[in-house]
C-alpha cells in the first residue's frame, strides 16, 4: 500500500528544479510547518539547560550560559528514573502480552472456519466504538474491588485490554493476505496449528507485529488519564503521571519540568526516528480500523 513507503521523489534534471515560483511557495510552507513543530521542543530544551536566573530573566535569554545539567539532576532526585522505569515496564509488558494474545486470537479468525466466528469478531471489535472515557468510572470501581488499584498488574491489564481489538484487527488482516501454501505444506507434514502459527505465520508477519508493537508501546507510554486514576502512591507513578503531579505541586520549577518532559519524550521520540516507516503504517492501520 502507498501508506507504508512514501517514495522520496526522484531527482529531476537540474534545469527543471531551478527557480520555480510554485516550488518556492511550497517549500516556504514546508519550512514554516517544520519550524512550528520543532520550536516548542527547542525552547523546552533550552529552558531545561538554563540556570534558574536565566529561565526567569527579562528580556528573555535565548541560549543558556552556562549550560547546566542541574535541572535534570533535580528531576532525578524527585523520582524521574523510577517513573520512567514504571512506564517502561508497564508498556513493554503490555506489548508482549498484546502480541501473544493478539496473534493467538487473530489466527483462527483469519484462517479457521468455526461456528460463531463472525459474532466473536464483532464482540472483539465493538470496544473500538466505545470511547475510553465511558469506561473510566466503572473500570476504576472494578479495579478497586479486585484490589488492583495502584499496581503494575492493574495498569497492564487495562492497557492490554484496550490494545487488543486493534492488534487483532491488524494481525487478522495481515494473516489473511499471506499465501496458504506454506501452511498447507506444514499441515501435510503433520504440524499442529499452534506450531504453524508459531513457526510460519509469526516469522512471516514481522512487519505487522512490529507496527502493532510500536503503536501499542506508544499508546501505553503516552497514556495519562487511566494511569492518573489508577496510581496513587509515588512509587507506582508512570512518567506521565509524574509530570502532572510535579506540575500541580506548588511552585513549579519550569527548568526541571522541561527536563522531565523531554526525558519522558526521549524513548518514544528515539523509537519513532529509528523506525519511522513502521510507525506510519501502524498509524494508518489504526485509522482504517473503522
Amino acid at each position, binding site marked *: 500500500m502507498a501508506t507504508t513507503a512514501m517514495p522520496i521523489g526522484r531527482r529531476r534534471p537540474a534545469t527543471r528544479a531551478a527557480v520555480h515560483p510554485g516550488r518556492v511557495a511550497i517549500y516556504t510552507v514546508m519550512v514554516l510547518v517544520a519550524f512550528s513543530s520543532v520550536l516548542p*521542543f527547542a525552547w523546552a530544551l533550552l529552558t531545561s539547560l538554563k540556570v534558574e536566573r536565566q529561565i526567569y530573566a527579562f*528580556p*528573555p535569554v535565548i541560549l543558556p550560559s552556562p549550560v547546566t545539567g542541574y535541572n535534570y539532576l533535580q528531576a532525578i532526585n524527585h523520582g524521574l528514573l523510577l517513573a520512567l522505569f514504571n512506564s517502561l515496564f508497564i508498556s513493554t509488558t503490555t506489548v508482549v502480552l498484546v502480541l501473544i494474545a493478539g496473534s*493467538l486470537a487473530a489466527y483462527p479468525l483469519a484462517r479457521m472456519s468455526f461456528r460463531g466466528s463472525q459474532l466473536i469478531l464483532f464482540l472483539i471489535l465493538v470496544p473500538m466504538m466505545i470511547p475510553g472515557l465511558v469506561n473510566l468510572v466503572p473500570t476504576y470501581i472494578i479495579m478497586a474491588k479486585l484490589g488492583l488499584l495502584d499496581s503494575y498488574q492493574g495498569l497492564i491489564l487495562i492497557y492490554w*485490554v484496550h490494545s487488543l481489538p486493534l492488534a487483532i484487527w491488524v494481525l487478522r488482516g495481515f494473516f489473511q493476505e499471506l499465501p496458504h501454501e506454506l501452511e498447507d505444506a506444514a499441515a501435510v507434514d503433520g504440524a499442529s496449528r499452534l506450531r504453524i502459527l508459531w513457526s510460519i505465520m509469526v516469522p512471516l508477519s514481522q512487519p505487522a507485529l512490529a507496527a502493532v508493537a510500536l503503536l501499542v508501546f506508544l499508546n501505553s507510554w503516552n497514556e495519562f488519564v487511566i494511569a492518573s486514576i489508577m496510581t496513587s502512591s509515588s512509587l507506582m507513578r508512570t512518567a506521565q503521571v509524574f509530570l502532572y503531579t510535579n506540575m500541580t505541586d506548588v511552585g513549579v520549577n519550569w527548568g526541571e519540568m522541561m527536563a522531565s518532559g523531554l526525558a519522558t519524550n526521549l524513548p518514544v521520540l528515539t523509537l519513532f526516528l529509528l523506525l519511522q516507516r513502521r510507525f506510519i503504517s501502524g498509524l494508518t492501520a489504526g485509522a482504517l480500523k473503522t
Partner: protein
Amino acid sequence: MQQTAITAPHPVARARRRQLDLLPYLMIAPALLAIGLFSLLPTFYGMVISVYRVEFVQLLSFVGLANYTGVLADPKFWNSVRISFTFTAISMLLSVGIGFALALVANQAVRFRGLFRTIALLPWVTSYVVTYLIFRWILNADFGLLNALFVEALGWPRIQWLGDPNLAMACLILVNVWRGVPYAMVLLLAGRQGIPQELYEAAAIDGASGVRSFFSVTLPLMKTALLILIVLTTITDFNIVVAMLVLTGGGPGTATESMSLRMYYEAFNYARMGSASAIAMIIFAINLALTLVYVRVLRTEKYY
C-alpha cells in the same frame, strides 16, 4: 489443547468435520474473555452505576434517573456542553482543514518530503501531557516565550493567555490543533497518494484547470479518507480530558471545563461516581449520535 492439536493432519484452511473443534475457541479465549470482562462489561456496569447512589466504590441504592436529573439541572453541566461542542467543532475543522492543505502541499514537493514528514510528525509522537506542559510554559504570562517575543518586545503589556476565558479557550484549541494536524496530514497524504496520476493527466487532456481537477478528482476520491478522519478527530476531541486538565485545569473559573473534564472531576475530585456515570452515558450517547450522522453522510452520498 493437546488432543485437538493432534487431529489436524490435513490442510488448515479447510472446514473441519462435524465434531466440535475446540482449538479456535481456546486460542481466542484469552483475548475475548479479557475484552468481555474489562471492556464490554464495564460499559454495562457504567449504565448500572448511573442509576445508583454510590458512596466511594459501593453501590448503595437504586435511585432511578435522579443522577441524570441532578446533572441536567446543573447550569455548570450546560456550560460544559457548550464548551465541548465549541472546542470539538473548531478543533476538528482547523486540524482537518490545515492537515488537508498541508497534505496537498507535501504531495507537490519533489524533495525533502520524507524529512518534512518526519519533522511534522514530532508533535504526534509526543504525549498530551508533555505537549500541554511545554505550551503551558510558553504561554506563561510572566516568563513565557510568547509574551516575551511577540508582545513585550513590541512594547505592549503582558497578555494573560490562560487567565482570560476566551483567550484560554483559543489557546486550548490552537495547541490541540498543533498536535492534531500532523496526524491528519499523514493520513490524507496517504489518501492523496492513492489517487492514480493518470486521472489528473486525463483531466488535463480534457482541459480541466487545476481548480477543476481538485473538485472533480481530488475531493471525490479523498472523501472516504476525509470522512474517516473527521469521525476519528471529532470523537478524540470530544472525549479529551488531558488537554484541559494540564493546560487550564478547566479555568479560568469554568471557562474551559468540557463535559469530559467535568466527568473526570465529578468522579475523581469530588468522588460523585453516580453523577459522573450519568455524564459519561450522556457523552456516550452524543458520541454514538455523531458517529451515526457521519456514517449516514458517508453511506448516502455517492463518490465518483
